[in-house]
């Protein structure tokens, strides 16, 4: 098996889980992941290198992506779109049987509230921001590769977090420690998240049920949406930092001008990748922080024969243990 993008929290988790259960795993990313597994170090858009890595593999889990909210659009295009095309082409050429493409729920919506939504088709035109647009195109490319020889399934985990998460959790904790973390609006918007172990298990399940699930896009979450303020407060408590105590009204935040760092879109693709500079607060980010995002999990659970094993509260307890036992309290500086 080949796991691309194994340097992020989710990618590492998947690679380890597969290797722990006895699969022969190779990982592919730009820098060494330090997992003690065979590695291919390359840029995902390098077609020839990817072809070489894929040959002789039975299955591929493709996580490599550019996840930040900032950066030139061409970079997203190159890594997310061309990278995915390289992987799909390589799979087809090499006769790989199964491809699990890791996508994002943001590929199918335009920034409004999502209340109990299923997985609608990816829409690069409606998707908001370069990340979501490029991931939408990538998902369409991946699913287009589904064919008699290659079974492709797209899995869209929503907001993955857990111990060692440099994206959402570390950022929240860091801002909260510096007193720079506000709530936007009432903080009551219901938001789905996915504890990392559950996301890992959903991806391995997708690998195992790839043939039954082929051609589909499935949203994966814990199925336990919570008000966004509760989620952030729980992360702060787990890390032992003060909970946010101030509030920015939606109207004010939306009116713009103020530059407030965001938690949300920054981390939309938080499965792997790098952290660059925080973007300013945009209208889109305000919408994301003040509107509901939660999903209909029935299809994913049925097709993948998977259930989230770790509850949200158990996840927070795990996070707290991690911080207590020397988990790095500061965000890991990727550079």
């Amino acid at each position, binding site marked *: 098996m080949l796991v691309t993008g194994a340097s992020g929290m989710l990618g590492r988790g998947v690679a380890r889980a597969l290797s722990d259960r006895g699969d022969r795993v190779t990982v592919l990313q730009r820098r060494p992941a330090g997992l003690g597994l065979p590695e291919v170090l390359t840029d995902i858009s390098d077609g020839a290198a990817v072809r070489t890595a894929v040959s002789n593999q039975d299955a591929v889990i493709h996580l490599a992506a550019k996840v930040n909210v900032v950066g030139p659009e061409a970079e997203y295009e190159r890594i997310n779109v061309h990278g995915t095309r390289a992987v799909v082409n390589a799979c087809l050429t090499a006769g790989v049987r199964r491809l699990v493409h890791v996508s994002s729920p943001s590929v199918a919506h335009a920034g409004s509230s999502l209340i*109990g939504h299923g997985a609608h088709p990816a829409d690069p035109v409606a998707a908001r921001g370069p990340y979501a647009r490029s991931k939408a195109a990538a998902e369409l490319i991946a699913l287009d590769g589904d064919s008699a020889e290659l079974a492709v399934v797209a899995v869209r985990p929503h907001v993955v977090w857990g111990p060692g998460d440099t994206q959402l959790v570390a950022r929240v904790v860091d801002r909260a420690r510096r007193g720079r973390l506000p709530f936007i609006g*009432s903080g009551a918007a219901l938001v789905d998240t996915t504890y990392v172990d559950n996301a890992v298990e959903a991806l391995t399940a997708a690998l195992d049920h790839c043939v039954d699930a082929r051609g589909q896009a499935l949203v994966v979450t814990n199925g336990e949406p919570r008000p966004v303020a509760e989620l952030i407060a729980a992360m702060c408590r787990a890390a032992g930092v003060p909970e946010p105590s101030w509030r920015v009204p939606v109207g004010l935040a939306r009116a713009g001008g103020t530059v407030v760092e965001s938690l949300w879109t920054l981390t939309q693709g938080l499965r792997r990748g790098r952290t660059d500079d925080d973007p300013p607060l945009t209208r889109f980010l305000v919408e994301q922080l003040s509107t509901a995002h939660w999903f209909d999990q029935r299809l994913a659970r049925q097709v993948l024969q998977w259930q989230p094993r770790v509850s949200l509260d158990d996840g927070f307890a795990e996070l707290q243990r991690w911080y207590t036992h020397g988990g790095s309290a500061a965000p890991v500086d990727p550079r």
Partner: protein
Amino acid sequence: MINRLLVAPGIVAEVMRMPGVNPVWSRLVPAIDSAGEPRTWHVLDNGVAPDVGTLLCVHGNPTWSYLWRRFLSGADPGWRVVAVDQLGMGYSERPNLPRTLASRIDDLDAITSELGIAGPVVLAAHDWGGPISLGWAERHLDQMAGLILTNTGVAVPLDADPPILIRLARSRVLRELVCARTKTFIRAAAALSWPQIPGEVRRALRAPYSSSQRRRAVAEFVADIPLEAGHPSRVVLDDIASRLGELGGVPTLLLWGPRDPVFTQRYLRDLQRRLPHADVHRYARASHLVMEDAPHAAEDAWMWMRSNLTTPARGPGSERPAPERALDRQPAPGPTLLRSVGVAAGSDDCPAIAELGRGETQVISFAGLRDRVGALADGLRRVGVRPGHRIALLVPPGLDLTTTVYACWQSGAVIVVADAGLGWRRMADSLRSADPDYLIGIPAAVAAAAAFQLPGVRVVAGEVPRHLRQRLGIQHSMEELVTAGNGSAFLDASRGNLDPGSAQSSEAAVLFTSGATGPPKGVVYRHQQLLAQLEQVRALCDVNPDDRLVAAFAPFALYGPALGIGAVVPRMDVTKPGTLTAARLADAAAAINATLVFASPAALRNVVATSAELTAEQLSALARIRLVLSAGAPVSVTLLRSLREILPRAELHTPYGMTEALPLTDISLSELEEAGSGNGVCVGRPLPGVQIQISPLDPLGVAAGPPDPSLEVSGEICVSAAHVKDRYDRLWATEKASSRDPGWHRSGDVGHLDRAGRLWVEGRLMHVITTADGPLTPVGVEQRIEAKSPVTGAAVVGVGPRGTQQVVAIVVPQTRAAVGLASHQLASAVRAAAEVRVAAVLVVGALPVDIRHAAKIDRQRLARWAERVLAGARAGRP
């Protein structure tokens, strides 16, 4: 042909793009009109071969066939559905000359024969489409398999004041202005609805009337309303109306929007009088455009056709018997409620009713009551009350109410009782739905009836100054009727019994539900059902002649005389159960040495809360009480235990039931203690003669299957007993749904039977939460939260789409907190207590409850609020 059309080419495409229209329905059909001219009609036609029959839909003014789109989309197999645009209307051709009623009937004939409509036909008509299609129906009696009329009429009174819009439209100049030159009339027709019809539908409704040229027929249609005696269409309309009896054998359904200012309830009453076999469904919130305001009307109509048109083909001359009407039946011999008044009484001199007022106590003996009832019944007959007439009663419990109820029954009338606890507006809406012939009320109620323009001859129970009587439209007073009756030959109770109107099978009462989950519904009882209820109460209380009753619970308060025992009404406002204090209960008990108490849970809560004020004398009066019956809402063990302290000898019983069937089960305090906690409220075992089964919930929370005797399965509670309601009043579809399993009434409550045969109530069917893990009923979770977390009240609701809902707990904390998200501590405590996954915990100051019982939580309202809050919206309070 096309050049004759005054419409732009491409009209079909325009219709095809409209919401709810299947593009293949729209058709242009050439035919020869009533004047022999070739014309082009536009129709919506599903084009299905009419193996079963044809549903022909005729619109009125100023609408078009679009109004019937749901009748097409929801059609049963084997049905051709055709909705015609009348000439000059919709997308049909605009002829040069105005049409009249007669020519429109001919035109309809022309287009139906062109369309090849043969074989059985069900006609559906709205507004002025009614007279036109009835004219057609009278010509095609052999084809008529069914008739569906919605907000229409055939009897335009000469004396009545037509609504302002129609009056404006009567003057030629104004008519041009209102109907043709401006869009006033077109817009007004769609503006009658509240809540508003969606914009895209309103645009579709007025799309064919975009220019004054295209609106010409709208004005002409108004001009053709025969408001005057000499109007040319008058004779045609009168002929249609007079021949309506010929449709007596045709199954008929009247679908009605009571908020229509044009076709008001008087038209419904007139149609019911002419078509007494008709089934009726009133959509309480619908206005003139019933099918828009009640989108499920089409579905209901199809359900009605399925249940009523089992033999679609009807040869000429064959007779279809009309459904049997109760009032046509021969009276069956047997006891009535009335007879029990006299028979059971130990002694004529015994007090029958005592009424505790401010300082004074009014008492009447059984003999006195019987005389007064007889006199009033006779007085009512003298002013025209006949068996089957409906009499609305707006009199608080006490001597006058008891007298009036039994007098109504003695005269064969049907009492209509709405709860003042509903508030004036909802009470008025309820009474109007029952369309009473008479209304008896205390002065304030009669004044309200005048203000709300309630129908019915007004009789005042009390004193009203003469000048006000006229202004309030009061025709009689109760005392006048009693006096008039007194002068006549003495009427004894047994003579009343011989009155056919009082026989067992005739209707006795229309009672209203509390409206906790929608507009209050009228529930019709026949005498035999009320008698069965009386016997249930008698058995439940083991009534013996020495008993005396404190009647603080309206439904049963009236049964004192029928049980043959004296009753006392305590000093309280029955609309506010909280006005019954411990002292007032004790004073009432002392007044007649009471042994029984009927009171609502809310009243008993207040009795416990005020028990500190009791004197030794009052305590000893309460110590004589041997039984307390409290129904209407669950009663907590804590409350019952506190009650036992002030009512030491009393057995405490809390029967379960509803307006449609009461009582069904019973449980005492000791049995409640024995049952312990479980999923829901334990309401005990079914009473003798009562059968209870469960229709299990499917994963989407629907109780689709038949009643099932399985234990430990959650589902809709279904009941079968002699004292279950006869039917819902003028709610054909609701009745059909509630009684779809023959012999069973679906209660709308969810619950389960345990292994000991006890029933547990888990909430309302419409409050079931449908999570991805399956359905979840709210009451059990609420009880756990209330028991194990620092809250005084909790409601559990679902947010999100059915089948994938999230659970939200809405709580009233013991210590005041801001409305909105609960604190971390509170949320954690509630989540731990709930034992199910709770997405969010929200705080409110108080839970919205119904007025009657102050106990039924409006979870739908809370769910809507929670959904707004948790979408991130600013939502205020629920």
